[in-house]
């Protein structure tokens, strides 16, 4: 019996579709870090991370823990933001001091590694997965501004001593434009992690990238459909199934944006504008214990001249507890905080007047002391 070409094609097509068939991954289960019960003396210290002459302007620091108790910070620096000489710099915090910064990625090095033109480099987000591998996500642009950014990914298995060649993630059908990362991810019980990212072209909305235990991208979920000015989500797990995000608000109402998921990040509640003000600035939120959230944020409706720590019981009603920086000149900027809570210690890194990256280290006891 001779098979007609149509039937033969249908069989081949059906077999290809079967080969391409992928089951839907099971719902993500968040890893919720345990709350330590260690009574130690309140601690609060500050330090500046050194700068290099070729990068007088620095911005957008991210932080990750190291296995030896140290920290690694990555930020971008150059003659000015979005200039072609901007590179990603990295420094280590060990034994109470920061090492000299070292350039790790430049537009040229990314361009060579990925065999594609890269003009600018920008925001980075560090994340340590459950296996201890460090992931560095950072954005690059070939044309246009930050809203046309493309997400890149490099990994390190030797505590950030060396990084793999960066690879571009394809996460948008719009010639892969406009996926940016700012804050670290949250680990999942299956060994993967969920990375909060955002889209910025035309409308701004948060998204979640889900990775498997090998660091391979599994899926992307958009968290918002109606509000068009929410970006730079800070993701915090509440329990195995629940998590919340707090977002920068680029809209005119200047309210901190809040969303929650109850099914491992598959679906999200509608945007909620909290009473807490947000002057179009990045925020960082962490959970210290079941009914205690800590947020580092710009606390006035004007600009980014005040950077404060606030606390909340439910993540929605916030009370200011300490001002890390304060200035009356609204041109002065203290911004883009990243919070890292590990055990008893809490670290914050942030942009200090765009001249330096400042590191503040305190502990839970210091926070408890300031609570009513």
């Amino acid at each position, binding site marked *: 019996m001779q098979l007609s070409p149509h039937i033969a094609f249908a069989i081949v097509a*059906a077999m290809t*579709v079967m080969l391409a068939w*992928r089951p839907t991954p099971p719902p993500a289960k968040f890893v919720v870090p345990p709350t330590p019960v260690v009574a130690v003396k309140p601690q609060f210290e500050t330090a500046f991370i050194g700068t290099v002459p070729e990068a007088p302007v620095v911005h957008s620091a991210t932080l990750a823990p190291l296995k030896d108790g140290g920290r690694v910070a990555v930020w971008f620096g150059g003659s000015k933001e979005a200039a072609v000489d901007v590179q990603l710099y990295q420094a280590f915090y060990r034994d109470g001091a920061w090492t000299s910064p070292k350039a790790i990625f430049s537009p040229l090095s990314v361009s060579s590694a990925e065999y594609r033109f890269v003009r600018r480099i920008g925001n980075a987000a560090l994340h340590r997965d459950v296996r201890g591998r460090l992931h560095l996500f950072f954005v690059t642009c070939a044309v246009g501004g930050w809203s046309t950014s493309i997400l890149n990914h490099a990994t390190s298995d030797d505590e950030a001593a060396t990084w793999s060649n960066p690879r571009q993630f394809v996460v948008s059908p719009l010639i*892969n434009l406009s996926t940016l990362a700012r804050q670290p991810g949250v680990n999942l019980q299956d060994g993967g992690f969920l990375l909060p990212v955002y889209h910025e072209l*035309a409308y701004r909305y948060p998204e979640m990238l889900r990775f498997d235990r090998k660091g391979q991208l599994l899926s992307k979920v958009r968290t918002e459909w109606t509000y068009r000015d929410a970006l730079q989500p800070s993701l915090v797990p509440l329990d195995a199934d629940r998590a919340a995000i707090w977002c920068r608000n680029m809209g005119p109402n200047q309210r901190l944006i809040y969303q929650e998921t109850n099914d491992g990040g598959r679906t999200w509640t509608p945007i909620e504008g909290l009473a807490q003000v947000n002057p179009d600035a990045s925020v960082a939120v962490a959970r210290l214990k079941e009914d205690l959230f800590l947020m580092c944020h710009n606390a006035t409706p004007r600009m980014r001249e005040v950077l404060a720590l606030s606390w909340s019981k439910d993540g929605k009603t916030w009370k200011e507890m300490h001002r890390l920086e304060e200035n009356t000149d609204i041109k002065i900027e203290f911004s883009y905080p990243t919070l890292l809570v590990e055990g008893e210690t809490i670290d914050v890194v942030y942009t200090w007047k765009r001249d330096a990256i400042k590191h503040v280290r305190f502990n839970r006891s210091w926070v408890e002391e300031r609570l009513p």
Partner: protein
Amino acid sequence: MSEVGDLLSISGHVLLVVYLAGGLLALFRVPLKWRPLLMLGTAWLGIVPFGRTSLVGLSRGVLGDLSLSMQALLLIGVFRIVGMRHPLLRPWRRDAAFGMFLVETALILSTLGILPFDLYGLGYAPQTLLIVLLATMVGMWRAEPACALALLAGCLAFAVGGMASPNLWDYLIDPLILAPCFLRIFSFRNADSPQRIAAVDLQREHLAAPG
């Protein structure tokens, strides 16, 4: 992404550069016999670095990775520019081009946040999309075999993880495809007409005739 994926992406942009160069050659009525050599030369020029990157690297940086459908269209275009004629190398039918145009437009509007649903998200665990794709491929095989084969190639590449994306859409379609689809939809010349094919064949025979 694997090295194979990189190679697939780079070859797509080499095809784009070659196709654009071929378009210029056709525009200036360069004789058919010179075109393959000149287009090969353009391919070489495209991958030679100048300054910070090559022409292909620049194209890849700005346009991202091309879908298999787009690469198939470019391949058809390149073959036609060098004078090859075959039923598979005919320009896509208007209805196929219109379908592609509609789907890509919906994807873009959805991604920009203008449509209230995430069409692109369907491509991650794409059971529904695969069923629709199978029906589309089988349905269009008789009328538009080249398009069906391009979609099949995209599906196969997705099955083996041949590109950087884990999303099926990126293997099937990309925004660049809007340009040829738009031109095809609004082209008043019916490139598929038997008269035109006959005329082209006649021209070929004339070119191939000795002396």
